[in-house]
């Protein structure tokens, strides 16, 4: 494999890791506050559909992004209502959201656009276009560094950079602010937060809302940046891979970045089985590479690579008791 191919693979890794990372950080906020969210998948899908639909109709991708975030937040609100206000089962609520999104997106897409459950192809301002960072052209011919800067670092859509900036921001919010301290506390021991005179319900809804925003961006990225339009089931299990990455990352923001890059790289490899064959000398089934994230997660959960301890109050509705 030559240097150019490697750069191509890494470039694909970044593009494929972006939606995983956004969804993973979304899950991180929610689960750190004690609300397990298996509905990342459904929220991404809903956001992907609505962002593409609105971008197609208005021709403005930023309006599409807002619409996508809105769709995801509506589903988040449902999840919050079910699991915080009504103290329901968080897994069931999440699964229901996934089914709801899978069905509704196709039905509404068919009813609005009559293109077999798709949205029209997006182009021009209807989708996010790559931006070229300063000096990318100038540095292009510098050996090694030039191509890395031009191919790998520059030339992505704005959402990629937003996703990566979200990592230090998430870390800072969680570990350096009052809100972060309370959010982590409410996922570990909500009674401690309650007796300290802080509202458990407000904190958990805030976390679920942040989760909705991030999932919304992830979904919009799928339909308006990675692809040019919505197709049925286009989230393709990324919500679940993001959950796997979250466990892999032990609920920590920087580890989440590394885990998502790793899983993104595996996805990039699955797309380029010809390159893999060239390197290792025999053909590997692409589907085998697709399941690698899950296999790695199972290995983590089995305790081979250290212990992943979820937030202690995760999954349990808060009920006052003596």
């Amino acid at each position, binding site marked *: 494999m030559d240097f150019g191919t490697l750069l191509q693979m890494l470039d694909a890794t970044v593009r494929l890791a972006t939606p995983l990372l956004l969804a993973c950080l979304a899950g991180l906020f929610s689960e750190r506050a004690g609300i397990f969210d298996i509905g990342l998948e459904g929220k991404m899908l809903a956001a992907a559909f609505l962002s593409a639909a609105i971008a197609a109709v208005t021709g403005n991708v930023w309006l599409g992004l807002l619409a996508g975030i809105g769709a995801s937040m509506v589903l988040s609100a449902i999840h919050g209502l079910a699991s915080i206000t009504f103290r329901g089962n968080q897994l069931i609520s999440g699964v229901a959201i996934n089914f709801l999104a899978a069905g509704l997106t196709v039905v509404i897409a068919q009813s609005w656009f009559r293109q077999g459950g798709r949205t029209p192809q997006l182009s021009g301002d209807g989708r996010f276009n790559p931006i070229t960072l300063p000096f990318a052209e100038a540095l292009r011919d510098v050996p090694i560094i030039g191509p890395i800067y031009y191919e790998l670092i520059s030339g992505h859509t704005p959402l990629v950079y937003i996703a990566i900036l979200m990592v230090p921001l998430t870390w800072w919010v969680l*570990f350096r602010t009052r809100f972060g301290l309370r959010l982590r*506390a409410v996922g*570990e021991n909500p009674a*401690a937060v*309650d*007796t300290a*005179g802080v509202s458990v319900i407000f904190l958990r809804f805030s976390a679920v809302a942040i989760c909705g925003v991030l999932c919304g961006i992830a979904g919009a990225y799928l339909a308006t940046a990675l692809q040019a339009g919505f197709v049925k089931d286009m989230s393709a299990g990324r919500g679940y891979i993001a959950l796997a990455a979250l466990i892999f990352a032990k609920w920590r923001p920087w580890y989440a970045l590394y885990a998502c890059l790793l899983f993104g790289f595996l996805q990039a490899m699955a797309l380029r089985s010809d390159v893999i064959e060239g390197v290792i000398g025999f053909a590997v089934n692409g589907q085998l590479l697709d399941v690698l994230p899950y296999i790695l997660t199972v290995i983590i959960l089995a305790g081979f690579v250290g212990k992943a301890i979820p937030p202690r109050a995760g999954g349990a509705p808060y009920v006052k008791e*003596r």
Partner: protein
Amino acid sequence: MTEVAPAIELKGISKAFGPVQANKDISIRVMPGTIHGIIGENGAGKSTLMSILYGFYKADAGEIYISGQKTAIPDSQAAIAAGIGMVFQHFKLVENFTVLENVVLGAEDSGLLRPSLARARRELKSLADEYELNVDPDALIEEVGVGMQQRVEILKALYRKADILILDEPTGVLTPAEADHLFRILENLKREGKTIILITHKLREIMEITDTVSVMRRGEMTATVKTVDTSPAELAELMVGRKVLLRVDKAPAQVGEKTLEVTNLNVTDSKGVHRVKDVSFDVHAGEILGIAGVAGNGQSELLEVLGGYEKATGSIRINGEELDLTGAKSDGQSRRAKGIGHVPEDRQREGLIMDFHAWENTVFGYHHDARYQRSRLFMDNAAIKEDTIGKMARFDVRPPDPNLAAKSFSGGNQQKIVLAREIERNPDLLLIGQPTRGVDIGAIEFIHQQIVALRDQGKAILLVSVELEEILSLSDRIAVMFDGKIMGERMPLQTDEKELGLLMAGMSTEAA
């Protein structure tokens, strides 16, 4: 002369949970700068009353006055603002946060953490010097002992400028030395003019530290008296509503043959922690061996091995027969077949199935017995119920209804169901862990009598309890466990709480 307004005055507080009236028209005055005890049996409504004062529950009726001012306390925020701090029985700490983060949580100065943490660090240092409340600010809660965790809870309240401190059963988890330390802290706080409300069911603590004591029974406040004017016997009677025997009445033990012989027992748990270290002891027929120790020093694992649900190395003989400690015969069923009865420490998780009926719970473990079977396939439920009615009568289980779920009974009656099941199988050796944890004084008396009666029938009894008083009054011989080892054996009449307390803290008195 003007009268000082009470720090707290409650007028006509009532609170019901569904059909249960937890607090009935309760009025109480707590004077500033005093330690006011509230004593009562489990379920008497003490904790409910204090949770109302702390804004955790809302009262159905009644008024709260703080320093003479009528105050509404709809939530904990309002209670904190009114200068009330509460240390709950089960600590409300975030386990994987540092001490400092726990103190600051909910009382941060601003949106950013750093300045708040810095101020808290300075404040903790001055509070530590003032009240003997020393803690390590950077230690994680899960890595410090319960004594320090409790001090963190007190610091949390003081950091929020609390003038009134409520402590709910604060000594339940402490060693005697730690309890003494706590009482010194409370004395210091009182000297600084703080008002302290101490909820407990231990008469000794009330007599030792309080100025005034209020007694609750079945949701009602039955009396408020100056501590110097009362006696433990009087308080016990006020709590239960009848005369109570505080000491266990028992004849000297008629010690027989060795029933249980434990030699060089070692237990390593699933996390690889060495829990029981080279423990050897005997229990003879007709005697009660009490194992004292702070919870978590290997007693639970010892009971689990003997009961057949934890593996071990070493040797255990019962009536001279070697037990299988690791193989196919190291399970509860085989242990019961050898004549070992087991009343586990955690009756709600290990002793009973809470959602199942009382009659089902009275046969668990013995349900293969021929007399409970109609044929090879079917249980004889009618016979089991009949049997349960008899057990309930003999063990005074109330209400005597075999069709109620185990969870519908009070702690004391749940324990009687377990005791009935195990004792009536006529075991040679009875293992009994924390026999009276969460059990009312009246039921404690009954349970103790049953244990002594079994001993007098010539059975061997291994008693594990964290209540030193219970160990001292029931045991014929006492072994103290610390860090998985037996620190020493004592005869109850030749030792006292102080010496046992030292052993429980790992200090050997042998050398001295």
